[in-house]
């Protein structure tokens, strides 16, 4: 399909048109952070650098009411009637202006929640209702490592439309069937003349990342270090066990479920969970199979670079966005840990 072009000046018009029909989430600045919020013409989106928080919540909200319940009571009847109402409906949404890594994260989700074995209706509904209009990176940061995990600054995997910054505006390409109809928008101009420039931008960004180290042995290396607690102690010494890395990770999909009741009514809530928290594996007995942060960090790195890829055709459960590195209060660097593991296995 032919590529289109939109100038920076026209962008608000397109966003307004999109927002007229569905929820449009764009990155905006909020108190020094960049977060995805519903498009408001009065608030200029921030497309330059990657958002502080990825658009994970668009499909997988930080907390989500799975269903609500209400007990009816009839006099002295000890067995009240129970009314359940599930909330699987999803809001049609366009996530506009995420970096490719943010959208790519959902590929890792999809294999878990859209598999045959345990399809997750909530996720599926939201995923299907969401279109990702991503923006290829024209520059990279010290924390970027998408090229380590088989991705890149213009990775279209997981996206529906891909925008590439070019002089004066963006080249707009449809990169999925879901994205194609959006090219019909009258706001978009023909982009044929801009494709070469766009390719150059992509190439330049890719080049800026440099060479990725060879981490092909990571799955085996990490598994081999499973019982090497001293190694994990050294890697995790500085970790403070917060959930910043997991909650900001576009690929972390773990959740917890709690019931919140008040009187005769209540709801079941699914909320993000973080494997870095002590409570993640805390059992009712008080026993915890991952009692220390070393155990937990081992799991996080191991899961992303070993256990998950082993189960899922080698797909690394990491999109290389670098948020876990950048937002970590103590700069724990997952790249360093993976490399240390590979090196240790070699030695």
């Amino acid at each position, binding site marked *: 399909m032919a590529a289109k072009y939109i100038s920076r000046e026209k962008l608000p018009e397109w966003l307004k048109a999109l927002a007229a029909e569905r929820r449009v989430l764009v990155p905006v600045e*909020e*108190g*020094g*952070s960049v*977060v995805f919020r519903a498009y408001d013409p009065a608030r200029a989106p921030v497309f330059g*650098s990657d958002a*502080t*928080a990825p658009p994970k919540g668009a499909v997988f*909200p*930080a*907390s989500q009411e799975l269903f609500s319940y209400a007990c009816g009571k009839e006099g002295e009847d000890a067995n009240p009637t129970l009314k359940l109402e599930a909330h699987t409906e999803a809001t049609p949404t366009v996530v506009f202006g995420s970096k490719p890594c943010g959208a790519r994260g959902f590929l890792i989700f999809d294999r878990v929640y859209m598999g045959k074995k345990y399809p997750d209706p909530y996720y599926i509904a939201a995923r299907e209702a969401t279109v990702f209009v991503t923006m290829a990176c024209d*520059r*990279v*940061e*010290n*924390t*970027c490592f998408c090229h380590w995990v088989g991705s890149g600054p213009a990775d279209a995997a997981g996206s529906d439309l891909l925008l590439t910054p070019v002089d004066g505006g963006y080249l707009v390409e449809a990169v999925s069937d879901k994205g194609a109809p959006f090219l019909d928008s009258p706001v978009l101009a023909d982009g044929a003349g801009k494709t070469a420039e766009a390719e150059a931008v992509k190439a330049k960004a890719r080049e800026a990342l440099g060479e990725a180290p060879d981490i092909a042995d990571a799955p085996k290396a990490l598994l081999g270090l499973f019982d090497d607690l001293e190694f994990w102690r*050294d890697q995790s*010494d*500085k970790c*403070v*066990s*917060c*959930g*910043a890395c*997991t*909650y*900001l990770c576009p690929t972390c999909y773990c959740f*917890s479920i*709690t019931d*919140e009741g008040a009187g005769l009514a209540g709801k079941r*809530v699914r*909320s*993000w969970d*973080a494997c870095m*928290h*002590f*409570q993640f594996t805390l059992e009712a007995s008080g026993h915890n199979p991952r009692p220390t942060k070393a155990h937990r960090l081992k799991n996080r790195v191991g899961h992303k670079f070993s256990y998950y890829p082993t189960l899922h055709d080698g797909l690394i459960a990491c999109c290389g966005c670098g948020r876990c*590195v*950048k*937002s*970590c*209060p*103590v*700069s*724990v*660097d997952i*790249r*360093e840990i993976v490399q240390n593991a590979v090196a240790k296995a070699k030695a």
Partner: protein
Amino acid sequence: MSRLEELKTRIREALPGLECVIGWQQGYDALHNTPLFMRSDADVDKLTWGVLNVHNPAVYLPTMAGKKVGVVVKGCDSRSVVELLQEKLIDRDNVVIFAAGCDGVVDLTKVKAKLAAAGVSAGNAEKVATDGKTVSVTAGGQTVAMPLAEVCADKCLRCQFPNAVLADVFVGDPAPQPTPNPTGNADLDALDAMSVDDRMAFWRYHMDRCIRCYACRNACPMCVCRDHCIAQSREPHWLSQEDSVTEKLMFQVVHAMHLAGRCTECGECQRACPMDIPVLALKKHLNRTIHDLFNYQAGVDVAAIPPLLQFKLEEDNIKERGW
């Protein structure tokens, strides 16, 4: 010998008797230092001392209880150590405190803003140079020089203790006492100037983006409940896991109230926040209250009792309202 070299020497001497010594080293790029756990002489070589040592290493001490460890501290960090000792959360015999005079550390948020204003992305930092007065950051081939006073942490602007209040090994000359700079309190001043309703809107605005990662809590050296925090328990069940502003704000109230009279204003809660939420203002406000009411400041006296764990029969500054 520079402070750093002397520190390294003294740490190397002490290391054989210690599980480890906690300090700082350069992190993933020139702008980011990261905590360092020194267990060997090679580790000690990595130690840094300077404006990028933003973290408070005292946070690790309670988790290492029972082991004899060393910790390198700035003046502010030492107050956390004092507070931990005071609350018997660590054992004096099990901690060796290494310190040197501190000339201040940067607030990376301010540095990033300066860089952004110069059209430079902090994400491309290549080199950082300091001369005590100026911080020069080179990123993307460009060098931006910024006065330390303009990019240092707020706490440094109001620093009372540039030299550790408690140290076993203090190297070099003590740092001079900086002149307090009122802009170090700009956050609280701004809140003070708001109406009550505006403050509610302020917190509603900021807490909305909280991701409940609890970095504020886990980076706090005084948050010793850690794994047993009431924010994540059902018994007791103070908070639900819902992503609502009230739950998120309530946690900040929990954190602040649990710190009342214990907080040394090290600022780690706010520094750690990946979403840049100005949560320190709440603790600053409480500290001011604690000071007004009880003429007390945390983290300066190992023998003191936190004011909310004691009382006076007649309180000097609490007046009951009339009806």
